[in-house]
Every structure is written in C-alpha cells, then in structure tokens.
C-alpha cells in the first residue's frame, strides 16, 4: 500500500502530464501527431484512472479505466488514423491565431482554471482533488484549440480532447461518474465520432476540402 502523500504526488504528476499534452496539442500543427498526442492523453487518463482505482479501491473506476483505454487509446485513434488515410488529409494545419498568442491565452486560461477550481477542490473529498484545476484547464485548452483550428479533423480532435478533460475532471472530483452514465457518455462519444467520420466524407465530397472555412455560407448578410 502506498501512502496518501505519495499517491497524491503521482496523481499530480499525471495531471501535469495531461496539462503538458494539452499544451502540446494546442501547439501541434500536424494532424497525425495530433492524433498521437490525443492517444497519449488517453493513455495518461487511463493510467491515472487506474492508479486512482488502485489507491482508493473504487472498483468501478477499473471499468472506467478500461473503457477509456479501449475507446480513447485504441478505438478512436484507430478510427481517426483510418479516416486520415482515406481522406488523405495529413497536411499541416494553419491555425487561425498564431501559436505563441494561443499559448499565451492558454496560460491565462490555466491561471483562471486554477482560480476557479480552488474553492471546489477544497470541498472535494477525493485524494485527487488538487488536479481539478488541471482538468478544467485541459477542458478550456481543448476549447481554445477548437477555436483556433481551421480544419475539420483537428477540430474534432479538440472536441475529443475536451471529453478527455471532462473524464479527468470526473475522476479528480468524484472518482468518476456512476457506471451507467459513463457507459452512456462513452457510447455517445463513439457514435459521435462515427457520425463525424461519415460527415468528413460528405463534406469532402461537397466541398473538396475539409477546411471549415468553406463552411461559412450560412450567415447574415
């Protein structure tokens, strides 16, 4: 059995890696690397969930870790890889805002997240409570990433990264959601990605590109 303090340090380490990965995704230009980073984030999430399950003895967290692994480390990256290959969209992405600026905004977001999460963490009874701020930060950073990307695939990856952040938050704050809910969320995410995959093809068919800047026809004159 490991001590609580040690466990805490480990979890904080995972959290730090999460945050690092979130920043890395924010800065990454290549789609394939983006998918790798996403898969790594999934892996860290799995490990951290597993670790929490191990230290706290919350059995359902094992399942949660399993689902996360299956879904976010294996299935989704695989689907995305396939999509990229079929769609042949490996090229670099140009951000709408340049990367240093994005990073600066990201730092501000982290500060804000910590600030917001602080009172909540004080309430949470979990050993992971300190990481809540980081979870929120990853959510917001993923959000920022969605804003700055101009291609459809990275945007979806951002969306999935946000989901990761949420899972991390759930683990951090409450040792995960009840099983039914987690399953439901996972199902939604999976179906969502499938639908999006279908969409990619259709969008490409219609617009000859996955650049979402083509999707600006519906607006007010």
């Amino acid at each position: 059995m490991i001590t609580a303090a040690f466990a805490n340090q480990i979890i904080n380490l995972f959290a730090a890696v999460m945050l690092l990965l979130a920043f890395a995704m924010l800065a990454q230009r290549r789609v394939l690397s983006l998918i790798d980073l996403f898969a790594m984030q999934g892996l860290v999430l799995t490990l951290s969930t597993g670790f929490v399950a191990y230290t706290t003895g919350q059995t359902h967290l094992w399942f949660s870790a399993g689902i996360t692994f299956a879904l976010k480390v294996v299935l989704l990256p695989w689907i995305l890889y396939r999509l990229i290959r079929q769609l042949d969209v490996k090229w670099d992405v140009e951000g709408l805002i340049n990367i240093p600026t994005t990073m600066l905004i990201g730092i501000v977001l982290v500060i804000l997240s910590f600030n917001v999460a602080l009172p909540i963490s004080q309430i949470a009874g979990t050993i992971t409570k300190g990481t809540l701020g980081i979870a929120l930060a990853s959510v917001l950073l993923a959000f920022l990433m969605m804003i700055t990307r101009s291609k459809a695939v990275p945007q979806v990856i951002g969306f999935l990264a946000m989901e990761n952040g949420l899972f991390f938050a759930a683990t951090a704050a409450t040792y995960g959601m009840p099983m039914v809910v987690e399953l439901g969320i996972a199902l939604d995410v999976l179906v969502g990605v499938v639908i999006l995959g279908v969409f990619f093809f259709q969008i490409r068919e219609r617009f000859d590109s996955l650049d979402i800047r083509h999707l600006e026809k519906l607006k007010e004159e």
Partner: protein
Amino acid sequence: MSLVPLPSVLLLACAWLALGVIGLARARSLTLVAKVLFPAGAAIGLAVAAVALMAIASPPTETVLPLGLPDLPFHFRLDSLSAFFLAILGLVSAGVSTFAAGYLRKGEGTPPGLQCLYYHVFLASMALVLVADDAYAFMVMWETMALSSFFLVTSDHRIAEIRRAGYLYLLIAHIGALSILLCFGVLQGGTGDYTFANMRAQSLPPFWATIGFLLALLGFGAKAGILPLHVWLPEAHPAAPSPVSALMSAVMLKTAVYGLLRVTFDLLHAQVWWWGVLALAIGLATALFGVVFSAVQSDMKRLLAYSSIENIGFIVVGFGLTVTFQAYEMRSLAALALTATLYHCLNHAYFKSLLFLATGSVLHATKERALGKLGGLIHKMPWVAWLALVGALAIAGLPPLNGFVSEWLLLQAFLFTPGLPDGYLNMFIPVAAAAVALAAALSGYVMVKFYGVIFLGQPREERLTEAHDAGPWERVGLVWLAAGCVTLGVVPVQVISLIDHVTGPLVGRTLAETATGSWLLLAPIETDRASYSPLVVLLGIVVATFAVWFAVRRVYHGRVRRAPAWDCGFPLQTPRMQDTAEGFGMPVRHVFEPFFRMTRELPSPFDRAPRYRVIVEDHLWHWCYLPVARWVERLTAIVAVLQRGRISVYLTYSFVTLLLLLLFVR
C-alpha cells in the same frame, strides 16, 4: 322590463359572433350575407343600444365568465360609462350595418362571408372591450378588435398600398396594446390581481400613477390617433371598405377614448394637474394638425380620416381639461368638460360615419376617390348629397346641428377656466381656446371643400354622369345617421341628462346639479352665464327662411329662367376650370406652410405640356418614424455581425461567455 342588461349585452355580442360564423359557413353567398346577416346585425346593434340606454341610468352590474386565465377569469361589468359607449356602438352600427347590407357587391377582394365574419367579430369585440372588467379580458378583446379590423382594412389585399396601410395599422396598434398592457401592470400596484376592481382599490404613489397614465396615453393614443401616433390613421381608414372606415372612425377610435377615461378617472384616482395640461397640449396639436392636413388632401376618404384626427384632438382637449379641473377638485367644471368630451364622442360617431358612408356611396357610383375627378354629384345622387350635407354641416360645427353643441360646451369649459390656482395655466388656457376656435373654423373650410368639390359644381369627368344614387338599404342607413345628427343637435338637454349618469360616477358631479335651463334651454351653469337653445335657433332659422321665402313670393312676380352660367362673361367654360381639391387647399398650404413638408413641381411659362404637382407630406413621418426605422436598421446591422458564419467565432462566443460567467461567479 326585467331584462338584465349585462347578460343581454354578452348575449348580443355572441349573436354578432354567431352571424359572423354563419357568414363564414356560407362564405360565397352574397344574398344571404347582404340581405339577411347584415340587417340582422343592424337589429342586434339596435338591441345593444336599447340595452345600453337602459343600463346607463342603472347601477353597475358585474358578472364573471369561467373563461380566460385560471386565476383571472373574464370579468365583465356594465356601468354607465360602458353603457354610454355601448350606446354609441349600437346606434351607429345599426346605421352602418344597414348601409352595408346594400353596399356589399359581388367580386371585390375577400368573399362576402369572410367580410361578414370580420365585421361582426369586430363589432362583438368592441362591445366586449367596453364591458371588460379585468386587464386580460380587456386586452384580449382589444387586440381581437385590432386584428379583425386589420383584416377588414386589408379586404382588398391585392393592392400593395392597402397591405402597407394594414401593416402600419396593426404594428402601431400592437405597440399601443403592449403599452396598455404595461399600464395595467403598473395599475395593479404589486398585488398580482388584474381585475379592474382591484385596480380601483389601489392608491398608487404619484410617480407610478404618472407612469401608468403616460403608458395609457401612449397606448390608447396610438389607437385614437393622437399626435405623433396618428400616421396609421390616414392610411388605414381610406384603405378599408367604407362601412368599415365608418365604424373604425366612429366607434373604434371611441373605444380608445373609453379606455383613456376608464383608466384615468375610474382606475387612477390621484390625478395630477399636469396630466391634463399634457393631454390638452397634445389634443390641441392633434386637432390643428388634423384639420390642417385634411384641408390639403385630395382623396375624399383621406380627408375624412384626417378630420377624424382633428375630432379626436378635440376630444382629447376636453379630456385634458377634465383632468386638470378634476385634479384641482373643481368638480362641476370637470363635469362640464367631461360632458363636452362625451358629447363630442357621440357626435363624431354620428357625423363621421355618415360622411364615410356617403363617400362609400360615391365610390360605388363613380369608382373614384380622388376629389379632382368628382363633382356635381348632387344632380345624380340627391339622396346621398342632401344627407351628406347634414353631416358636413354638423362636422363643421354649425348651429343648430350636433357638432356645434359639443363645441359650445367645450368652449364654455374653456371660458370658465380662469379660476385655476396656477397662473401659467391661466395664461395657457386662452391660447388653447384660441387654437380650438381656429381648428373649429378650419373644419368649416374643410367641409366646404369636401362637399363642394364632390357634390357641387360640374362633373369633372365624363363618366360621372352615369353615377346612380344609393339603393334603399344604403338610404335607410344614411337617413338613420343624419337623423341622429339633427336630433343630437336639437335636444342637447335630454342627451346631457343621459350623459350626466356617466359624469356623476367619474368626476363626482353632474351638470344637472348646476344647470338652470329647462327642457328647451341648455344652460350648464346658469342662464345668465351661458345658454343655448338649438331648437329655438333651428326654429328661428327655419321660420325666418320660410317667412322670407313667402314674403319674396308675394313681393316678386318675375319669372325664373335657366341659362348657361355667366361667369363674368368668360365665353369658354369647362368643368376643368373649377377649383380642384389642390387649389382649394392652397390657402391653407400657404398660411400653415411650416406644418407641411411640400415638394412642388411648378410649370415654367415655356413648358409645352405644363404640369403642376404638389406632394404634401407629414413632417412627423420624417422626424419620428423614419429615424426610428433607420435606427432599427442600424441596430440590426450591428446585430448581424454576430452571425458571420465562421464557426471559430461562434465557438469564441461560447468560450468568452463561459469565461465571463466564471469571472462573474468568482
């Protein structure tokens, strides 16, 4: 008779609705609609009037129907004020419906059955507005009235102008209705009880009372057509079929006056003196504006519509005086001013509907609305012409017809004003009286123009010689209204004794308490101060006329020859050489130039085909409405920036919203 008034009114309103539904069911059957349903509607109108006249002297009755909102079922109440306006509705609608029975023709826009539906829904909703006793019932009926009249206005919806008129009308009506709604929101005083009974029981602090009053003035003013909310009126009234124009002008505008009186005197007790001054100022501006604009119109129905604005102005002036007197607790003077106001409502209902119906007949006979293409119709349409003369003289405020009586009362009310405790007010009142006198005199000008150009002179177009007189139904309707104009003018004492039942509860005093006249002599304060006996004047004029006539007959033995007009010896005479409507409006345009926004196209002496064109527009349209429209447009342009199609931007909105809210929470 043991007839219970309020349920009878509700039943009669339902009967109107039923007529409408029957019309809808047999939408294409002109005979049924015109010869059965409309006369039946007229009969119901008479019944409403009868019930109302009975109820005017009896104490208020109330009833609650299990309709409406769950916490606020429809409350109805019939008191003397409601009864008075119901009487107007019933009496006028009887004439108008009879007229309409003859007026409906085949193949004009909306099918007759549908028109019958709107028409009777319109009548029923007006009746129910007048008896509504809670805010919800009132608003429902009020807006139903607006909606049904909107559909009536746009009966001939193929014409873009008419659609535009209807649109403007409904828009302003709706904004007015929202404002009335907010007024009721103020009036209930935080109790959450929207019955009028509760509002009566509230005593609001002056600030809120003032807000309520201003909202009411705005809301009801929009319906009545006071400045600067009048713009819809000259568009909508001419667009509607004539019986509808008649009803709208004659009755619907009065429901707005009713609302104003109801809110100010019945629901809001604490009157502030400057409310009255405000209303007085607005009323004066409205009256002058209306009459000056009606003088320059070249479309006969627009002319009448502007004249309605003028008359509403007079009514609002009377209302304002009443409020001021009431605020200073000068109750008998308040009773005098209120009597003038109510009397004018009644009069205007009669003569304006008469004139609108007359224009309807002219329109049917000639297919022409432009004054510049009419003329000489007295020869072809003697019935319409002579009856319209009664209306024209009445509206011009000439003794001994009814228009004069209310004007007389109003001027009397002004004359007694210097007794007000406020010096400035005392200075203002004479100026106001002068303006009223000016507007009244101008209305004479307008009516000479109206009547002279349409009915007198020579026909300005060839085909006018084929015009035909009104049919029997139409005649009956016109005669009914004209008879009303004369009766109301001749027996003011009896009418005022009816109105006294209304003024008593509202201002706490009646004219009967101070009057010293007899059945023949109208003397509201004392005979020494002022008295008027229209019957005697009428007799005087009639007797004198006939006496002179007989005398001349006896003295004179020459023959009477017919010959072409002499016209100072000019050889060539064409009907086109008569004054046109524009020409007749010229002096007014000249004298009141700042009122108008004119664009003129004058021919030069060298023009091959000289053309003269003048467009007279309303400054207020350019000062108030277009800027508002521009502002809205500008704002929508700003708002549209929100939706530029870029998903990143949309995401940024969500993001920023989230961050701001988080900061807000921290």
